[in-house]
Structures are given as structure tokens and as C-alpha cells.
């Protein structure tokens, strides 16, 4: 960490303070952006508010520069690193996708192997397309009753490391979208013993750093890098994120990797939201998340009292592939009432005006956060009770989600850039896919570039389509045709 001139503490928010000062200085803008504090675009100003557009400004000396932070942005990063217990923190403005991408690009070069569970977010595999690294998939266990993919078994990670001692890193979801954690400490230890880095996708783990009784955070577990979605449980604006690094990672090199793809016009709206949110978490995070956990526990009890639904929690923990469970996650298994999760998701929005995070084949996930109030929770629980009363049917014939072991034929990059042809999905069995197919959300690929297409995979895609999942990933927006290797 560089030596800064000022001594700062967590009650401060340097970017926010600098923007306030900047506003008071009434500087005349003869620089970009061209809307000039909103005056040039009255419609936008009326929509977003003058306060908001007046700080949508360009990098300049008093406000520092995200590509090369030496003053207030650097200070904000130092404070974030301190708050999260990291050696270094980077403010990111390209979403947690950019943080994940930076982790992979820092750890891997073309041809390098990286060990990861198959239920990674698509941004991880996209990063492999960019850099040419090869994924070594570890089978994430699937919970038989619930049909959700879990964490990685210690034994499976150990076996993967043994089989691929030349791999450069192990990537771990901490936690998964559903809130399931692997034994991160053990995996960090195994990775380090084999000379590999341990990277954590903590898109859903910001609160692990501040709440009490939370699963272990990546930095505390000794992981080398972590991608943290501040805009999810941290409260900052959409698209803002943090990248954390441990003491054994060269922060200067990480900055260079970030600058390969990062905008040179970092948004001060996003950066100030990170700064203010970090301050809030550092000062009040403990109380904030205690409230969220209490609401989630209450909702679980109430939903389980309705009957039919199963709102699951820590009781699932098995010491290995469900090493821990995020208590703020409100995931509900819906198959016993005869509805797919995605059907409940659609009914909630279309008939009850309630938007939840996602629904898949057997479950829904309602995202609870610092912004929730008990009265809205009562609406959610009551709507679920009503959906059961009105729609409950026999659950026979509903598919349970099974883990489909991918057959990786070549690296995602090779497959993505290879000569390819478009074929109807139905005629693609046996071919090697050149692109993704996934339900979004959650954005976990069903099929990734370089994988062989099987009947099981096609059946699953068609079932998801019939139930109303929004399929994405392929060049063909309707996802009826797929690019395969020519």
C-alpha cells in the first residue's frame, strides 16, 4: 500500500467529500461530459435530478483518476481495503463481471489450467474466452431433493489438484447464488500447498465481511483475490463492484490488467456510491445485516408454516459441499406445490406485482437486503400462501434439476473462435458448442463453448423453455439455433 498524505478513518468517504467540495467550487466546465452538469440536457436533468447530474463529471486533479489513482480514489480504495481486511481494494465500474474477469486474467495466461466448479457465473467462462485458459471442472454436488447445485467437496478439489498439478488457480463461489458455501479455508490451504492461487467469486458475499454469524469471507480465509458485488448486498449503485486482493498478489500488475479493458471515463456516480456504501457497512454493517438475517429467518418460518413450500436454511449444512449457508438468502423450494420455481416467479410478478430475484426449475429466490421492510415481507409471504391456495396441483411430472457432467472437448476460447456453423438446436446432439446457453437469471451456463451437446442437455433446455425461463447466450436471440464447430 502506498503512503498517503492524510490519515483517514472509516467515518470518512474521500470521493463523496471531494465531490461535495467540487460542487461548492462552482467550477466552469470546459471539459467532458458534454451535458455540462446537466444544463445541456434538461430532460435528463429533470429525470435524474440536478444533484445527480451535477456530479457526473470527468476525472480531474481534485477528483483523481480511476485508471491511476493517487489521491481521493486511492484513499477510498485504502479505506475499502481496510474495511474488508484486504491488502488492496480496487473500485470497479464495469460490474462484478469486470472484477471476475480481472481475477482470471491476472491468474491465467493462454493455455493455463484453472480449477473451478461448473456452476460458475458466465463471466468466469467469458474471461476464459478472452485469455485462452482451460477450465478443469469440479462437479458441484447437486442436492437431490432441491435440485440446486452446491459447493465443491474437499475431496473433489483435492483430486482435481492432484490430477492437474500444473493448474494455476482454483476458483470458488463464495457463496453460490443460493447461498451455499464450500469449505473455503480448506480449499485455500490445498491451493496454496500446490502453488496455486485461490480466487473467490463473492458476487453474493459482500455481507460476509460485516455481518455476524456469516460464512467465512474470502479475505479472512486467506484467498488471494475476491470479486465482491457491492451493488448486491452492499447497497451501492448497479454496476459498481470491488476487487479485493491478498498480500501475495502484485497490486500494480492487477491495476494493469484492469486497465486493459476498463473505461477511461469511470463514473463518479458509481465510485461515490461505492465510497458511501463502504462507509455505511464499516460503521453500521453489523446492525444492518442482523436485521436482514432476522427478516430472512422470520420469512423462512412463515413460509414453511404455509405448507407445501420449503424455505431452506442452515439445516442443510453437511460439513463439506454445503459447508455453510448464507442466512440472508431466502430460497424456497416450490416443486411440492406442483409448480416450477419459474412459474411461481412469473405469477408473483404478473398477478401480485412482486418481483423476485429468480425462479428456476424447482426453486425461487427472493433477495432480501438492507432496503427491505417487514410490511413488504408480509406481502411476499401472503402472496405465496395465495398462490398455493389457488394453484396447488400434483407435482408428478415435474423435472428435478440434475447435474449434467459437461464433456469439455476444447478450451472455451478455441471453441468460440473456431470455424462454426449454425444448426437447429434439435439437430445438434453430438456436436461441440461454440457458444453459451443459459437461463438468465441466474446466468449459470447450461452449455458453454467447447462442450459436447448431449440429449440430456437439450431436454433440459427445452424443459426450461416450456416452463418460461428466459434463455440467453446464443447468437440466435430465440435460442432455436446454435453455433457448433464446423
Amino acid at each position: 500500500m502506498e503512503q498517503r498524505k492524510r490519515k483517514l478513518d472509516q467515518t470518512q468517504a474521500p470521493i463523496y467529500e471531494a465531490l461535495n467540495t467540487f460542487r461548492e467550487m462552482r467550477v466552469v466546465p470546459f471539459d467532458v461530459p458534454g451535458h455540462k452538469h446537466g444544463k445541456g440536457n434538461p430532460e435528463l436533468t429533470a429525470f435524474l435530478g440536478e444533484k445527480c447530474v451535477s456530479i457526473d463529471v470527468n476525472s480531474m486533479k481534485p477528483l483523481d483518476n480511476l485508471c491511476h489513482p493517487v489521491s481521493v480514489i486511492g484513499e477510498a480504495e485504502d479505506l475499502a481495503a481496510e474495511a474488508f481486511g484486504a491488502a488492496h481494494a480496487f473500485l470497479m465500474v464495469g460490474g462484478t463481471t469486470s472484477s471476475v474477469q480481472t481475477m482470471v486474467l491476472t491468474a491465467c495466461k493462454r493455455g493455463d489450467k484453472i480449477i473451478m466448479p461448473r456452476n460458475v457465473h458466465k463471466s468466469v467462462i467469458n474471461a476464459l474466452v478472452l485469455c485462452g485458459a482451460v477450465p478443469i471442472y469440479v462437479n458441484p454436488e447437486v442436492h437431490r431433493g432441491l435440485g440446486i447445485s452446491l459447493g465443491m467437496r474437499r475431496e473433489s478439489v483435492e483430486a482435481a489438484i492432484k490430477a492437474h498439478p500444473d493448474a494455476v488457480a482454483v476458483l470458488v463461489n463464495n457463496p453460490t447464488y443460493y447461498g451455499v458455501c464450500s469449505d473455503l479455508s480448506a480449499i485455500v490451504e490445498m491451493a496454496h500447498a500446490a502453488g496455486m492461487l485461490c480466487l473467490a467469486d463473492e458476487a453474493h458475499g459482500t455481507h460476509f465481511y460485516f455481518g455476524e454469524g456469516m460464512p467465512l469471507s474470502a479475505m479472512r480465509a486467506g484467498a488471494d483475490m475476491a470479486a465482491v458485488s457491492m451493488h448486491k448486498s452492499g447497497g451501492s449503485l448497479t454496476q459498481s463492484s470491488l476487487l479485493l486482493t491478498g498480500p501475495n498478489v502484485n497490486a500494480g500488475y492487477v491495476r494493469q490488467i484492469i486497465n486493459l479493458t476498463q473505461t477511461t471515463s469511470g463514473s463518479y456516480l458509481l465510485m461515490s456510491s461505492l465510497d458511501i456504501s463502504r462507509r455505511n457497512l464499516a460503521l453500521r454493517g453489523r446492525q444492518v445485516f442482523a436485521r436482514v438475517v432476522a427478516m430472512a429467518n422470520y420469512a423462512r418460518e412463515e413460509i414453511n408454516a404455509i405448507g407445501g413450500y420449503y424455505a431452506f436454511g442452515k439445516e442443510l449444512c453437511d460439513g463439506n459441499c454445503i459447508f455453510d449457508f448464507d442466512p440472508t438468502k431466502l430460497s424456497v423450494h416450490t416443486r411440492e406445490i406442483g409448480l416450477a420455481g419459474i412459474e411461481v416467479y412469473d405469477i408473483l410478478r404478473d398477478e401480485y406485482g412482486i418481483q423476485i430475484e429468480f425462479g428456476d426449475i424447482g426453486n425461487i429466490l427472493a433477495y432480501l437486503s438492507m432496503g427491505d421492510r417487514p410490511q413488504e415481507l408480509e406481502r411476499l409471504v401472503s402472496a405465496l400462501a395465495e398462490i398455493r391456495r389457488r394453484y396447488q396441483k400434483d407435482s408428478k411430472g415435474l423435472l428435478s434439476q440434475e447435474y449434467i457432467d459437461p464433456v469439455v472437448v476444447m478450451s472455451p476460447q478455441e471453441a468460440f473462435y473456431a470455424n462454426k456453423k449454425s444448426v437447429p438446436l434439435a439437430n445438434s446432439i453430438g456436436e461441440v458448442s461454440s457458444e453459451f446457453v443459459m437461463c438468465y437469471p441466474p446466468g449459470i451456463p447450461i452449455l458453454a463453448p467447447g462442450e459436447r451437446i448431449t440429449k440430456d442437455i437439450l431436454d433440459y433446455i427445452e424443459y426450461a423453455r416450456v416452463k418460461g425461463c428466459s434463455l440467453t447466450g446464443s447468437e440466435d436471440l430465440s435460442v432455436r439455433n446454435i453455433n457448433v464447430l464446423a
Partner: protein
Amino acid sequence: MELWFSEFHAPDVKHSIRVDRHLYSEKSDFQQIDIFDTPEFGRVLALNGNVMLTERDEFIYDEMITHVPMSVHPHIKDVLVIGAGDGGVLKELTRYESIERIDLVEMDPQVVNACRIFLPENASRLDDPRVHIFFDNALRFIRRCTDQYDLIIVDSNDPFGPSEGYFSREFYGICYNALHEDGIMVNQQGSPFYKHDADAMKRSHKHIVNTFPISRVYQAHIPTYAAGYWLFGFASKRYHPIEDFDPERWKKLHLETKYYTTKLHIGSFYLPAYLEKMLEEVE
């Protein structure tokens, strides 16, 4: 010194009442509660700056939300009242000897406490032995009830504050489920005049139409509410508010009223053309 209470009835419309004395001003866990004396409307209760009741015109609201369903359903014994912490609806309901049980669910104990002290006339029947007060979220309370009530009266605040959930489809659904097979739900349905109110009224009417086989809207003139013009929803599993209305039976009870009459009962369901059109849009 001139002291005025003002309330926005629409973004560009203000309704003001001269105030003699501000008696009570507290912020509870749910809302800002104010009680004050006024020369024209007597004592006034305001929640979050919205007039809930005035001594002068509360009889209109309380009578219309109570006597209309009570004169249609021939044997109401079990009643659930949502909100109504001021006690005004109870004052009307407890006049019916045939009622055996009244459960009142109010989210805010502080409203009840303040009304007991400052609106004792209004709150006078809160201690009737048939009345059971539950301080709870109504959604939470009702979703535990199945086939329990003959009548549910939803006397809530407007749909833009802590009562928003009481205008939702899930709320009407659990009310339906909590009613006996011939039960009735009556709710305050807001005003159709200003756009903001009209949109909310249409939304909730749509939800009720989708939940109950019979759903009709009736009206009253209430000076201190937005536009002075207020609506109630009559949602029912079996009884029609006019076809099953028996004026003679009600007259035999000899209840003296200041607003409600058996003729007005029928008249209140005949709505102005613009409102009929609005309701048809969502039916």
C-alpha cells in the same frame, strides 16, 4: 396568529383547515400521529399528514362502511376489522346485538392509545366485551385464518403509506379465504377524482374483481377527504348489495343514523358515468 393545517389532496391542490390548538404530535414506529382542535371540524386525527377523521364528518364514513354490509347479510356474527384504531367503526358495529365477536387488527398501538385519550367519544366502544384488539400486521394475522368471519371491514389508511399492502391482490385473497362461504368484505376504496387516487382505486378494484364473484363500488360525500368524494368497495361471495338488501329487516332494528338511510343505501351504488367507465375498464 393564524394556524392552518394543510393537506395535499393532489400535487397541485391543497385543503386547509384552521387550527385552534395542536394537542398531540408523536412519531410512532409506523407513522406520524397528530391530533388537533379546529373551529369548523372539531377534533381532527391526522396520520402522516392525512386527515383520518374529524369529529364533524366521521359519522358519514363510519356509518357507510358499517350499515351497508350489515343490512345485506342477514346473520353477521363474526366480524374482523382492519385498521380503525380510532374506534369509530366499532362505535357503529357494537350497536348490533346480533354480532358476537369483533376482532380488530391495528398495526399501531400508539394510534389506539392517542385516540383513547384525545378522542374518547370515538374510542368509547374499544372496551366492549365482544371486541378483541390485536396489534399486528393484518396480512400476517389474516393469512392464518380460514373460513372464520361473516364480515371483514378494511378501514385502512391510503394506499401510499404503511397500509399499501392492504390494497394488494394477496391481501384480498387472504380475506376471501378468511371469510365464510357467504362472507362480505367492505373496504375504503379511495377517491376517483384526482388522477393519483383514481389510479390506485382502479388497481385495487381490479384485484377485488379478480378475487370475489360479486364486487360493487358505492359512494359517499365526505368533506375532509380528497375531492370530498369517497368510495367503498363491496365484495361478496354470495349476497348482492341491492338484490339481497332487505330494508324492512334493517328498519326493525330502529338504529338511528345521521347519514345512512335505506334509500341512500340503494342510491349510493348508482355511480356517475365517468366512474362507471373507469370501473368497467378494469372489470
